[in-house]
C-alpha cells in the first residue's frame, strides 16, 4: 500500500475530468455608493455596533470621550501617538501582554486595514495600529478607528486590496450567535461591545 497522498492523488487522476469552461466573472467587482462612509456607518449599526463620526482634527478628543471612565485599555505599540490621549490607563502590548493580563483589561483600541461599506465589515491584517490577533479578541470592549480612505464599497474591492500573507480577521459587528431558534443574539465569546470611530 502506497502513501495516503499518492493514493488520494491517484484516485483523482483515475477519473476522467474534462476541463470546464473559464469562470464567468460578470458579477459586479466594484459597486457604487453615493456616500460610502454613510453606508458603512449604517451597515455597522445594523449589527448593533455603535458608530461615531469624527473630523480628522477632533479624533483625539473623540477617543478620549469614548474611553473616559473605561479603565485600563490595551493598545498595539504602534498606534499614532496622538491616539494615546492623557487620562486613560494605557497598556501597550510591548513587551507582549500575557493572556491573563488581557483578561484583566477593560478594553482595546485599534486601527484597521480596511472596511467594506456594503457589508459593514472591518478587516484587521495585523498591520499598523492593529497588533496581534489576540489583542482585539480577549478584551470585552473594542474601539476601532476607521479612516475614510480605508473604506471600499464591495467585497471584491476588499479582497483585491488585502495581503493574504499575514493573518486576517473580518469583523462585522460584535460577537453574535443565531444558534438559539435561529434568532441573532449579540455577545458570546468575542468583544461584546464594538464601537467604531469613522474619521474624515
Amino acid at each position, binding site marked *: 500500500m502506497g502513501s495516503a497522498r499518492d493514493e488520494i492523488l491517484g484516485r483523482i487522476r483515475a477519473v476522467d475530468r474534462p476541463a470546464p469552461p473559464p469562470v464567468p466573472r460578470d*458579477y459586479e467587482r466594484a459597486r457604487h455608493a453615493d456616500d460610502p462612509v454613510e453606508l458603512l456607518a449604517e451597515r455597522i449599526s445594523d449589527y448593533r455596533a455603535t458608530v461615531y463620526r469624527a473630523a480628522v482634527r477632533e479624533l483625539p478628543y473623540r477617543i478620549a470621550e469614548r474611553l473616559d471612565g473605561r479603565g485600563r485599555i490595551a493598545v498595539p505599540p504602534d498606534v499614532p501617538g496622538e491616539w494615546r490621549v492623557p487620562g486613560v490607563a494605557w497598556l501597550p502590548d510591548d513587551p507582549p501582554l500575557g493572556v491573563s493580563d488581557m483578561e484583566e483589561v477593560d478594553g482595546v483600541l485599534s486601527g484597521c486595514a480596511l472596511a467594506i461599506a456594503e457589508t459593514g465589515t472591518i478587516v484587521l491584517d495585523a498591520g499598523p495600529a492593529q497588533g496581534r490577533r489576540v489583542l482585539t479578541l480577549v478584551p470585552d470592549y473594542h474601539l476601532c478607528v476607521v479612516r475614510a480612505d480605508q473604506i471600499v464599497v464591495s467585497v471584491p474591492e476588499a479582497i483585491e486590496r488585502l495581503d493574504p500573507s499575514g493573518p486576517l480577521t473580518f469583523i462585522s459587528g460584535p460577537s453574535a450567535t443565531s444558534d438559539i431558534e435561529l434568532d441573532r443574539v449579540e455577545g458570546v465569546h468575542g468583544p461584546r461591545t464594538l464601537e467604531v470611530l469613522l474619521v474624515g
Partner: protein
Amino acid sequence: MGRNPVTWLGSPTFPDAARRALGDTQLRGNLRKATTTIRGKRESVVAELDDWEELRRAGESIKDEVLADLDTQLERLEVAVTERGGVVHWARDADEANRIVLDLVQEEDTDEVVKVKSMATAEIGLNEALADGGVNAIETDLAEVIVQLGDDRPSHILVPAIHRNRAEIKEIFAQMPEPPASDDPRVLAEAARKYLRRKFLSAKVAISGANFGVADTGSIVVVESEGNGRMCLTLPETLITVMGVEKVLPRWQDLEVFLQLLPRSSTAERMNPYTSIWSGVTPGDGPQKFHLVLLDNGRTSTLADEVGRQALRCIRCSACLNVCPVYERTGGQAYGSVYPGPIGAILAPQLAGDLHDEQTASLPYASSLCGACYEVCPVRINIPEVLTHLRAEVVEAKGKRTPEAMAMSAAAWVFGDRKRYEAAQKAGSLTRFLARGGTLSSLPWPGSKWTDTRDAPVVPKESFRSWWRRNRG
C-alpha cells in the same frame, strides 16, 4: 478500512425515522419557527444584490474548475502551506484522519482540546475517536455545546441544535457550574461564555475545520459568528485543521465570490460576524504549530460519478435545509447522518458509498423533488437531478429479484400488449370497492407496499379507452 461513520450506525431507514419525528409536535413547532424566520431573512439579503445570479454561476464554475483539476490544486495548496510553516497530512478515510489527529494531540502531551464547529470532524467521528484515545474534545460553538451537553445528535448543518427551543436549552445548561437563570437567549449565551472562557485560555491544542483553503496563497478560511473560532484559532499553541479535499479554491481572488455567497445563504446576513484567514504560521501571533489534514473519506469516489460529483461543490451553507418541506417536517436527525436535508440526501449516500445498506439507500427518497433546494443553492447543485440519479443506482444495487423489480417487469409485460393492458385496467377498477372517501388507504398485498406509506386515488369506473370506444368508436 472500517465502516464510514458519515451515516450513524444503527439508524432506522428514513421512512421509519420520519414517521417517528412527525409524531413529535414540539420538534415540528421548533423547526417551523426557525426555518420560517431564516427563509424570510435570506430572501431579503439575497434580493439586495443585483448580481446574485452571476455570483452563483461564478461559484458553480469555480467549484467545477477545482473538481476538474483537484490533484493539481491540492498539490499547490500543500506547497503553499508548507512554505509558510504548516505541515500537511493526507487521510484516505475516517480512521486514518482520526489516527493522525490523535497522534498529533498526544505529541503535545495534553488530554483536552478545544474545537471549532466543523462538519468534516463530525463526519469522521473525531470526538469519539479522541475519547477512545483518552482525549477530551470540547465543542465551543454554542449549538455544538447544546448537542454535546445534551448527549444528543446534530440536526442541522449550521445550527446543529435547531431542534431545541430556549426552554429545552436552559434545561440542558443546568449541568454547567454556573447554570443560566432564565431561558432568555442572551442569558443562555452568557452562560456558554462563562463555561468556555477557562477552556479557551488554558487549551494547548485546538482543532478546526475549514470553509476554504486557497491553493495559491496557502490561506485557510474559517467563517463563524460567536468568536469561539477566533479563540481556538488564536490562543492555543497548536492548531490542527481537518479539511475535505474538495474545499480547495484555486486563487485568492475566488474568495470575493464565496464571501458573498456563503453568509447570505447560511445565516442570512450581509456578512457573518467573524471570518479568520491565516497562512501557515505567523511568528509571535497565534499558534506556532499548524497542521492541515486533507481528508478524502469518500470524496474521490464521489468525484468519479459524473452526475453525483456536483454534490462536492457544496459549501455547507444549509440554505437547502431551510427551504425543504421534507426537512421542515422531519428534522435533521431522521436522515441518520451529520449531513441532513436535501444536500445530505445526496452527499451522505455518496460518501458512505454503500447503497446495499438499507438506511443509506433510503436517503435519496427523502424528497418530494420539488426543486426548492436547487433554486436557493449558492453553487447551483441540481439536487433533484442527483436524487433521481441515486434512486436509479439504488434500484440497480438491489438487483432484479426484488418485489419492485419484479413488479416493474410485470408492468412491462402488461403495457406491452393492448389486450393485457385493458384487462388490467378493468381489474384496477375493482379496487373501487376498497375505497373510502375517494382514496385508497389500505390495499391488499402487494398493493399494501404502496398504501402503507401513502394514499392512492380511486381508479375510475371506466377507463378512457373504453369510454372513447363506447362514445366515438
